[in-house]
């Protein structure tokens, strides 16, 4: 009798948790979730709070590029949640390496911001739930280059001899070709030989006239310290730079740019898909989104968190780089290029840098 009573009380205690979503939270206790995300892309307190709330352990590891993630997935299989970018998600879907999101668990997709809804690579969130999103633009020092000057030039600023030796170029072949293609009025996803070779010529000219330093993440601190006049930067990093150095401004050229979305997906061979879905639901919620975006500076995919942080009194109030431009017709999400160009663009890019 006593035992039954205890059981009953326990079940009653668990009831409110179970009613929140279509999973049994108690059965998750003690499990391990393997998460693979970009470096410096989370507030670790959020991960710890998740571990505590569900009494689970999160094995959190980081990667540095989509291509590296792709290689890792081909050889290893231990991940439950990974956070690739748009074009890589497209490739993963095509290769059959993802499993659908369980929308009975992830029941908060209506909280997604307008800019990350109905995305070309996965229109109805069958496989992916957006995490952070961003544009590519130019951070520049307003004491050296005026706003009108920069807005008028857009990407052509990278071919202005007046800025020679004072610019950082992000060392990424895809982004490099994107700015050249946009400057020339092409699509950032072109596979037309003549257009890509014209973009290649544009970049050779950029290399010769601007003599930029090719950098990756060092650009964030270097621009915060104002070491150079301008740099190609992702909007999330730009938001941080602008909050550190008030001379800096962010320009998203009118020729159009890349809008990039990093989204949470579950590999087909994930060992713990239920917990993975629970995690995705948790990370999409308002509180986790607010904490992550505050910590990292990238635009949240959660509409409410986005509004809160950019609104009056928010962490990024008045920060022009925080909310990515959306709905602009010349902006494009990257498409997964055919394998020929996947190999040729980096090859051309290396040769541009060596010249």
């Amino acid at each position: 009798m006593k035992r039954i009573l205890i059981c009953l009380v326990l079940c009653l205690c668990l009831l409110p948790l179970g009613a929140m979503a279509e999973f049994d939270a108690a059965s998750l206790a003690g499990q391990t979730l393997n998460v693979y995300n970009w470096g410096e892309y989370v507030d670790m307190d959020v991960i710890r709070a998740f571990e505590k709330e569900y009494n689970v352990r999160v094995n959190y590891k980081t990667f540095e590029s989509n291509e590296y993630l792709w290689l890792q997935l081909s050889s290893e299989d231990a991940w439950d949640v990974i956070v690739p970018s748009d074009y890589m998600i497209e490739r993963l879907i095509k290769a059959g390496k993802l499993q659908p999101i369980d929308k009975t668990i992830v029941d908060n997709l209506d909280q997604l911001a307008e800019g990350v809804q109905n995305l070309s690579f996965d229109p109805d969130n069958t496989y992916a739930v957006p995490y952070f999103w961003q544009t590519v633009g130019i951070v520049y020092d307003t004491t050296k280059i005026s706003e009108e000057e920069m807005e008028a030039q857009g990407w052509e600023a990278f071919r202005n001899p007046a800025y020679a030796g004072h610019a950082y170029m992000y060392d990424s072949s895809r982004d490099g070709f994107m700015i050249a293609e946009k400057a020339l009025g092409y699509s950032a996803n072109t596979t037309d030989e003549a257009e890509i070779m014209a973009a290649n010529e544009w970049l050779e000219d950029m290399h010769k006239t601007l003599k930029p330093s090719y950098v990756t993440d060092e650009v964030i601190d270097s621009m915060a310290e104002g070491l150079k006049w301008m740099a190609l930067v992702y909007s999330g990093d730009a938001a941080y730079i602008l909050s550190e150095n008030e001379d800096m401004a962010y320009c998203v050229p009118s020729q159009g740019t890349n809008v990039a979305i990093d989204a949470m997906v579950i590999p087909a061979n994930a060992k713990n898909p239920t917990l993975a879905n629970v995690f995705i639901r948790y990370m999409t919620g308002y509180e986790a989104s607010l904490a992550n975006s505050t910590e990292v500076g990238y635009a949240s995919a959660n509409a409410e968190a986005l509004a809160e942080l950019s609104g009056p009194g928010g962490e990024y109030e008045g920060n022009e780089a925080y909310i990515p431009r959306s709905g602009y017709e010349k902006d494009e999400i990257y498409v997964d290029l055919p394998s020929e160009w996947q190999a040729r663009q980096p090859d051309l890019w290396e040769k541009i840098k060596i010249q």
Partner: protein
Amino acid sequence: MKSFFRMSYPYILWIGLFIIAPMVMILLYAFTRSSDGAITFKFTLENFGRFLSDPTFLKVLWTSLRIALITTAVCILIGYPAALFIANLPEKRQTFLILLLTLPMWINMLLKTYAWRGILMNFEIESEIKVFIGMVYDFLPYMIIQIHTAIAKLDRELLTAAYDLGANKWRAFLKVTLPLSVPGIISGITLVFLPAVSSFVIPKLLGGGNYVLIGNLIETYFLVAGDWNFGSAISLIMALIIIASMYLTRKLDTSGKEE
């Protein structure tokens, strides 16, 4: 004896798995081409032809070699007098100074390079000079320790004999100390030149993004372009250069001993 040999099995297995097998794979990749992930096992020299016929790649090779050569030369020029100075001190102070020399080696190379980046950022120096400062700083201890070991174990009686026969200090150095310390210089070169030629972190961090080196190329073709065949060919060319320079230095060493 036989039972001792058995104890080396784990090590042989280790070599086989983690050294021989990857090398065989690199060889295989370097001499083949793959299309869309499928490898066709057809022998080809295409990857090597592509590297050697392209002046931009040869320029990268030359930059890597030039940085390594200059670093090694500067290390000898600074390291030899330093080693000589240390070797002529009383033994207790020698041990202490060598300990001081090895101290920075306990710190992670990346940390040291970031520290240099912070220091050098405040100075208007050519980025190439910054690279050399970082490289020489990192590799100098290896050179000094190698030369010091050679000089310290040199038989002092030989110098006394030289003086007895009327040699002045300078002449004794040229005829006795220098030739006998050549093995030290050679192993110093091996320890400095080989890592220097394949290093790319220091030039990348201190050169302000103005250098593309062999290491960067290999990284790009493997990780970004996904062209493992070409990446393997570049790695193999690199390996050949290292083997060739090891052969040359050993040759120098043995010809020095025969004299």
